[in-house]
């Protein structure tokens, strides 16, 4: 008897969750290398009592990540890199190895190559990369090799510092997100093939404002309809109680 209210309630809870995901996407519209999330809804069918018709409730099963690449913007900063293709940088955190696509690199006080949050970026063997002081502009090649120029006896020589490790992670849509643009994987991280690095550019967010705005409008109206359903059901029950439950005349 209470089914209508519970179905409407399940819709409202699912819409609330969808609104949270949309708001998070909109808030991160300008975050470097952010990937939009999409909710996945499903209907949850249950039978109330023997022989009764099944009732379908809404359940939000999961969210999955939109894995499209964001737009590249050139910044000109030699420490900014953008990854083209399906590859991730491996960084070392106190909680273990994490992966990120945020290419804003820098040099820590100890000389390690770090991300903007200070987590050291690892090379293809899993070690930290040391950048000596005062070496002038670094060149980062398309395969991740770092080098810098040194004035030698025959002229400028190139000294290699190592290769930034690029990994491909299985199941890109279902990676677990931590904060700060880091993701964790339970699977095996393999060296990435066919992935290039662009120096002096950054990958932007892949949030599409139009899609999020239209979803917001959709949500607001769907929420209004759900509230309407709840109110109508409430009125119906109250009317039924008043008409049928009053003292016999």
């Amino acid at each position, binding site marked *: 008897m209470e089914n209508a209210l519970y179905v409407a309630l399940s819709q409202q809870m699912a819409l609330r969750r969808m609104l949270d995901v949309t708001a998070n996407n909109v808030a991160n519209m300008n975050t470097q290398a952010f990937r939009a999330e999409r909710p996945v809804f499903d209907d949850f069918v249950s039978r109330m009592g023997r022989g009764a018709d099944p009732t379908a409730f809404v359940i939000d099963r999961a969210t999955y990540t939109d894995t499209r690449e964001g737009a590249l913007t050139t910044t000109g900063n030699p420490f900014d890199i953008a990854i083209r293709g399906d590859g991730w940088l491996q960084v070392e955190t106190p909680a273990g190895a994490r992966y990120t696509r945020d290419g804003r690199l820098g040099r820590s006080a100890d000389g390690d190559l770090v991300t903007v949050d200070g987590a050291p970026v690892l090379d293809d063997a899993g070690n930290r990369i040391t950048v000596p002081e005062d070496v002038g502009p670094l060149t980062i090649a398309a395969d991740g090799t770092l080098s810098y120029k040194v004035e030698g006896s025959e002229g400028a020589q190139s000294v290699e510092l190592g290769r930034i490790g690029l990994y491909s992670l299985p199941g890109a849509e279902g990676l677990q997100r931590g904060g700060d643009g880091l993701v964790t994987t339970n699977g095996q991280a393999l060296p990435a093939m066919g992935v290039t690095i662009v120096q002096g550019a950054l990958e932007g967010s892949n949030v599409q404002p*139009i899609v999020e*705005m*239209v979803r917001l*409008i*959709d949500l607001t*109206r769907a929420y*209004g*309809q759900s509230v*309407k359903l709840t109110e109508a059901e409430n009125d119906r029950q109250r009317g039924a109680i008043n008409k049928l439950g009053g003292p016999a005349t």
Partner: protein
Amino acid sequence: MRTLDIAASGMMAQQMNVEVISNNIANINTVAFKRSRAEFQDLMYQSQLRPGATSSDQGDIVPTGIQLGLGVKPGTVARQHVQGPLTKTEGDYDLALDGRGYFLVTLPTGETAYSRAGNFKLSPEGTIVTTDGHEVSPGITVPENTRDVMINSNGEVLAYIEGQTEPQNVGQFDIAMFVNEAGLESVGSNLYLETPASGVPILGLPGQPGFGTVRQGYVESSNVNIVQEITNLISAQRAYEMNSRTVEAGDQMLNTLVQMR
């Protein structure tokens, strides 16, 4: 309600249109740039009643049916490989191709890229290279004590060396043609790569039948027509605005629905 999604697809298509136009305008002074054009297709249709279905057992056929469109999608962003105007620069190694064909550029990876940007320079060894330092096929080296260099319309490089009256032919540029030029892949830096869509390169020399000729002292400017781009920009902007009106109308209709008593 389909309106919101259809209008959203329209806005995204116009956004892509404006992005292509702004790339064209940004490259209005790039040597040998070829403008792009975004072309759209209607997305797909849901048939609630198919035209041609029978409407009675006498064999009467439904003449038109009910088909609802679901929006727009980008079909292609196609490059227009039209010859750009030639600009006189009087540089010794500035070459413009008048007609069809591409210079062959050897990339550091060993691959061959194709380019129409003929603003070449000399490497420290005297080889003719592009502005990025990539060697231009077949690798022509100008000897050290050269007074003057003349490149004729067949792409032959004639060097006038100190102490000699007759010029010395130090090489001839190769050029390549493609059956489907629009199928070349742009990789930036004024370079194109061959793809299965473009067909195999047809190699030849400038001046041969069908191939263009080389003009020394000129460069090919971009073929972007600024008036056309601004007009397209205005049209795309208005289309974006109209699609946003559709979104608002759909929103108001849903609002009316919710407020019904």
